[in-house]
């Protein structure tokens, strides 16, 4: 926890407190739902950041863990497992699932790795679609984690809690030996292995932690919308959205996923209410602008901007601000 010294810890607590207080002032459930989605995706982005940011492994299959979280929760509960235990168990199942997937796909690198993550998620989606016990394509009704009265307030606060935990894990990773190993793997996997880092092992650990958090998010999401179908909680779009949020905000940075989630999801909802059908175009243009102007993501880009101003231009770009794609 050496990373959280001095003002940083107060800043973190302050930000969390402000977010957690927001529901008290929000005018209605709809805005709360939008905020719930934003904070939840910030949490998912942070979880993804462990693998995709620090370790530099571009996973486009995180929806698998998300879906296991949602479906696991609904199906375990249907088999009389207490509600919150089924959320926890399904996250553990997702972690185990990640261990199995990881031990296979981490033998691959670069695009092959990415493709295999997509493939696993797709296999899972198709399996669930054809599994009558999981409701098949018709879907499942999910149990509500909270009573109707404070329904969205509680979901929102749970998402804040999840985002907070994910943030702490990220903060610890960014300054721990574990995190340095991951960054070394990202920068050059062969060199990392040559200096004695058990690369497969550390990548796997990062993935398991990431899967656990992602599955918790999936459980929350599944319960909040009370109804899940493979096309909603196992769709490849979610994997891509999680990755885009993090990369746009700044992969491998602490605040990147949070900034990305706020900007993208708020924009998506606002554009939708404002421009009707053309919202996707507007949304797309926004992404293109950010990618063109700030290729390292918003936080990464601003960091660089700030450092170039304060330091003479001859200085080498700092490690944390280099793009994540330097893996191999």
């Amino acid at each position, binding site marked *: 926890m050496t990373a959280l010294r001095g003002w940083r810890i107060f800043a973190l607590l302050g930000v969390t407190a402000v977010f957690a207080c927001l529901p008290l002032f929000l005018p209605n459930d*709809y805005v709360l*739902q939008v905020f719930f989605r934003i904070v939840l995706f910030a949490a998912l982005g942070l979880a993804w950041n462990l693998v995709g940011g620090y370790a530099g492994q571009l996973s486009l299959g995180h929806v698998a863990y998300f879906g296991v979280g949602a479906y696991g929760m609904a199906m375990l509960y249907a088999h009389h497992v207490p509600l919150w235990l089924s959320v926890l168990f399904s996250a553990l199942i997702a972690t185990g699932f990640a261990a199995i997937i990881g031990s296979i796909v981490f033998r691959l690198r670069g695009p092959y790795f990415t493709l295999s993550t997509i493939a696993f998620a797709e296999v899972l989606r198709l399996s669930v679609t054809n599994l009558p016990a999981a409701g098949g394509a018709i879907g499942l*009704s999910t149990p509500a984690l909270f009573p109707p009265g404070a329904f969205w307030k509680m979901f929102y606060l749970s998402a804040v809690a999840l985002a907070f935990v994910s943030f702490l894990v990220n903060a610890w990773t960014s300054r721990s030996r574990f995190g340095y190993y991951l960054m070394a793997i990202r920068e050059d996997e062969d060199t990392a292995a040559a200096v004695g880092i058990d690369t497969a092992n550390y990548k796997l650990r990062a993935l398991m932690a990431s899967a656990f958090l992602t599955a918790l998010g999936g459980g929350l999401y599944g319960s909040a919308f009370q109804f899940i179908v493979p096309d909603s909680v196992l769709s490849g779009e979610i994997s891509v959205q999680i990755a885009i949020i993090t990369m746009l905000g700044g992969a491998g940075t602490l605040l990147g996923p949070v900034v990305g989630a706020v900007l993208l999801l708020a924009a998506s909802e606002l554009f939708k209410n404002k421009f*009707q059908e053309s919202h996707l175009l507007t949304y797309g243009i*926004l992404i293109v*602008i*950010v990618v063109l102007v700030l290729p390292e993501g918003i936080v990464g880009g601003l960091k660089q901007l700030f450092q170039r101003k304060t330091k003479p231009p001859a200085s080498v770009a700092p490690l944390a601000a280099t793009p994540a794609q330097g893996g191999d």
Partner: protein
Amino acid sequence: MRTRLIAAILILFSAVCLVTPMASAQGTIKIGVITSLTGSQAAFGEAHKNGYAIAIDEINAKGGVLGKKVELDFYDDQSKPDQAVQGVSKLVDQDHVVMLLGAYSSENTKAIINPVSTHQIPLIIPTATADNVMDSKSPWVFRICAGANDYARATLEFLKHNGSPKTIAIVYEKTNFGQANMQAMKEQATAAGLQVVAVEEYEAKAPDYKAVLRRVKDKNPDVVYFGSYLLDATTLMRQSMEVDLNPKYYTSAGTGFAAAEFPTPKGAGRNAEFTFSVSQWLPDAPWPGSKEFDAEYFKRFNSHPQYHAMQAYQSLQTAAIAITNAKGTDAAKIRDALKNLNLKTSAFGPVKFDNGQNLHTVLITQVQGGKYHVVFPANLADVKPVIPAPRWADRK
């Protein structure tokens, strides 16, 4: 570096502009609409939107409802169920609409039944045909379209009176809509004495259905019954030609096979010829207002409407009548007005809800010469059906 700053400022500025709330006119009655304006079902969402647009102009031209203008509030569910759920909250909690219309697909509609019931707001379902959307028996839910069971019943009735085939194969896309229609047809066909020789499912987004169609061809059925959306319907017919599948009857549970684009070059084009489809409505339907709706639709959008547009149109018209009958915008009173509604006639035929379900007559149509024609029931038909469908080798 300066460009980056400028870009950042621009982004911030546009975000601020967007947050400023939209001004809403006072003294209007707001009705919420959830439909799929984007995503895989966008073609149908467009039809919805057009239907609603005509209805709202007609209603407001006549002075609105209860002396107030009616205003529509759209929420795009992006063809995703969770977005549809969010739409209920946006429209009810934030925009305070007096009632809801939507969603488009059976899947999204099923998803919003729960939130609609907990919000205690009346909902009219224009187009969701899967019968499980009515499972909840919620008193707040009213469906104007006929369901999958009615589709199967009408199709079998038609077959019985037109050659009485012996075997049937069912091919369906495996979301709620396709599965519901497959179930309904499988049960009722067996009950009606038809032998179900093949039941094949497919993924609507898949690009290739030849394997499915070849398996059907091996069974050589008299009838093929499709439960398909638009893009898959188009591909299915093209690939039916390619694998040379020749049943006597191509029948279908509407939707893709009843979409405006389907018999045109934008859809399946000539491959669509001779396909039968159930239909909830056609411009030629013998109901007052049908032709006028068709003419107005063509004038505005330069294409002829299919039943999805009409169902949206009639949902809004029905909503307006219910609010008028309720003499106010109290949710429970509107619900009761819908319950007691008994429209002897409308552009969509008579409207009367029995436990929330409108008792609607299903038509059977056939594509002839690039156009849909009613072929059944006989008293409403405008042409005779062509049976059997010519073999692919004999077409052109």
